[in-house]
């Protein structure tokens, strides 16, 4: 709504709105205060099934195994968010910047460390807090640092290499799910002896895609190279 449209609201409307919001907030507050203790949630069932899940971290087990289908759709949400940004317009990328020597040196030292860190977070996700989303965010931060400080924008990577990077996570997840459908008879039904390896495989691909997608979101538009120009 434009500024002209907003100034139209009368004081009565604003007070009415305030009253409505206060009522909603009061009602919600009351509901929360009267909440009973947490009903027996699913944590018992999760711990009972941890042995066959392939990992030791219950969060990872829920995310990739028990409710892996949700995570698969979330990967699609992430990709659609990027497609949404791309449908708005293109980003200027043919710029040349001259990074100061200190920045170059710092990024040159930080980026490999961050990539290593992402790898560690991915690996540790199997039995401690960590996993694809955390690792992907660190990877994305490294990518953004490189984009901001590198002398030349990686134009040649903006075509199919970028698209492979974006699709890898969702594609791998889908491919594993469908392969399991035809091999073990159930969609995303991991055989318990292979579950650990398959989860690591999916998470590795997802980490890369999350990193690439978040870094691409940072550009704020589709890169002016490749077929989506």
């Amino acid at each position, binding site marked *: *709504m434009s500024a002209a449209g907003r100034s139209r609201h009368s004081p009565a409307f604003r007070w009415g709105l305030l009253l409505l919001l206060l009522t909603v907030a009061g*009602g*919600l507050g*009351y*509901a*929360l205060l*009267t*909440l*009973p203790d*947490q*009903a*027996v*949630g*699913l944590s018992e*069932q*999760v711990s009972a*099934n941890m042995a066959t899940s392939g990992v030791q971290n219950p969060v990872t087990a829920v995310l990739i*195994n*028990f*409710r*892996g*289908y*949700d995570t698969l*759709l*979330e990967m*699609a*949400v992430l*990709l*659609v*968010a990027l*497609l*949404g940004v*791309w*449908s*708005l317009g293109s980003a200027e990328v043919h710029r040349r910047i001259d990074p100061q020597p200190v920045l170059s040196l710092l990024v040159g030292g930080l980026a490999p460390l961050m990539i290593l860190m992402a790898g560690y977070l991915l690996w540790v996700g199997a039995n401690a807090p960590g996993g694809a989303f955390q690792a992907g965010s660190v990877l994305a931060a490294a990518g953004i640092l490189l984009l901001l400080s590198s002398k030349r924008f990686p134009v040649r990577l903006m075509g*199919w290499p970028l*698209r*492979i990077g*974006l*699709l890898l996570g*969702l*594609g791998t997840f*889908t491919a594993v*799910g*469908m392969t399991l*459908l035809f091999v073990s*008879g*159930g*969609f*995303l*039904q*991991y055989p318990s002896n292979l579950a650990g390896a398959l989860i690591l495989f999916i998470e590795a691909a997802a980490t890369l895609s999350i990193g690439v997608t978040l870094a691409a979101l940072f550009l704020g538009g589709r890169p002016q190279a490749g*077929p*989506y120009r």
Partner: protein
Amino acid sequence: MRQIPWEVMLIMLPLTGAMACFFWPRRAITLGLITALGVVVCVAGLGWRVLEQGAQRYAVGGWNAPLGIDLYADGLSLLMLMVTAVVGLGISVYSIGYFERRQAAHFWPLWLFLWTALNALFLSADIFNLYVTLELLGLAAVALVALAGGANALTAAMRYLLVSLLASLCYLLGVALLYHNFGSVDIAILAQRVELSPAVWAAMGLMSAGLLLKSALFPLHFWLPPAHASAPAPVSALLSALVVKASFYILLRLWLEIFPPAGAAPGQLFGVLGSAAVLWGGIQALRQTRLKLLIAYSTVAQLGYLFLAFPLASSVAWKGSLYLLLSHALAKAAMFMAAGNILRFCGHDRIVGLDRVAQRLPVTMTAFALAGVSIIGLPPSGGFIGKWMLLEAALRAGQWWWVIILILGGLLAGAYVFKVIGYAFTRAGVLRQTSRVPMTMEWAALAMALAALLLGLVALWPLSLMEIGLPFGGGDAG
């Protein structure tokens, strides 16, 4: 041989198609059309299975609810999937002529992701999974609106995004409250465990408010007309025909299964708001000077009818509302496609400047008129059957006042449809340059309109499908 799990295919096929279209933008149209045909085959496969064996439940990953996520297909899901497939195929064909190559490369992946979200939503039996599908649906829809470019479309898309996110978050908070109280997010399990408490009332209010906002029920419809009118024509058709119905579907499931203990009062409120939507939307539609805005306000009015089933809450009323939903999806897709053709032909969509479109675009105008028959609710159309059933339910329940709304809404719809048709036959003052409209776009619109009409002629078959799995309770006493 093992059974093919059609429910899984219905979600994974459009998802794979979307990825393929994104990867090979130059082949997007071919890949997209193959995917669309594949989805139609999968719906047929699932339909056959449901007809033979009754309602289907599929545990994803082999974990049953409550630990895992279940997919569930009964007659209600099946009809929603079918109408999505029919409208989706029509829109796919229509879009070939509508978009130039570069736009098509953007349209196809987004549209197939949207189709994935719709199919996943209609098949989900899990309120958290429904939230994820809503997110996918909302983001894809916003991106498609923005595809039109220009200040109007971007402003509308931005407002749509904010509304959609607010609604999703309301819904998610409700999900969190229900999970805290009952330790499950599976609809069937929640239905058994639910007991009224302040927290459940809060969850009910939050989830309903979020879904009403997404379904654009009066007075939460403010975002709909600009978003639906400024999108590209195939996208307008998608949004009005399918996307707003998706959130209505979730609302229907929740109120049929989890929230019945709440009693009749919320249903009466929905009915009053629905009636206001029918009247307000109809009057606003009549006042519009642009064709696409008129059709968008007509959607606001038509969505109102769907909510008249809530105060009646009988089996006949639910079925009538669902019947209206199905026929509105087909008819409104036809109308927006016809409007897109007229916009392409005349270069504008001012209603007074429609300058003998009826003679010069006969197929398109036929499609518009036939769709109008269903929107007004004249026999023999799907709209007529739906309204008839609502009317019967209202009289049977002794709540005659809803009948007045049904009749007034029909009169208003008649007035705005005939306003357009009238101008389409008369000569406008200034003659303008016109452009050619591809055949596929004209015939796709007509096919949708004919399907809406057909729904009025084969009423028994969809009505018997609605019985599978008894989503609306048994018998007519309900």
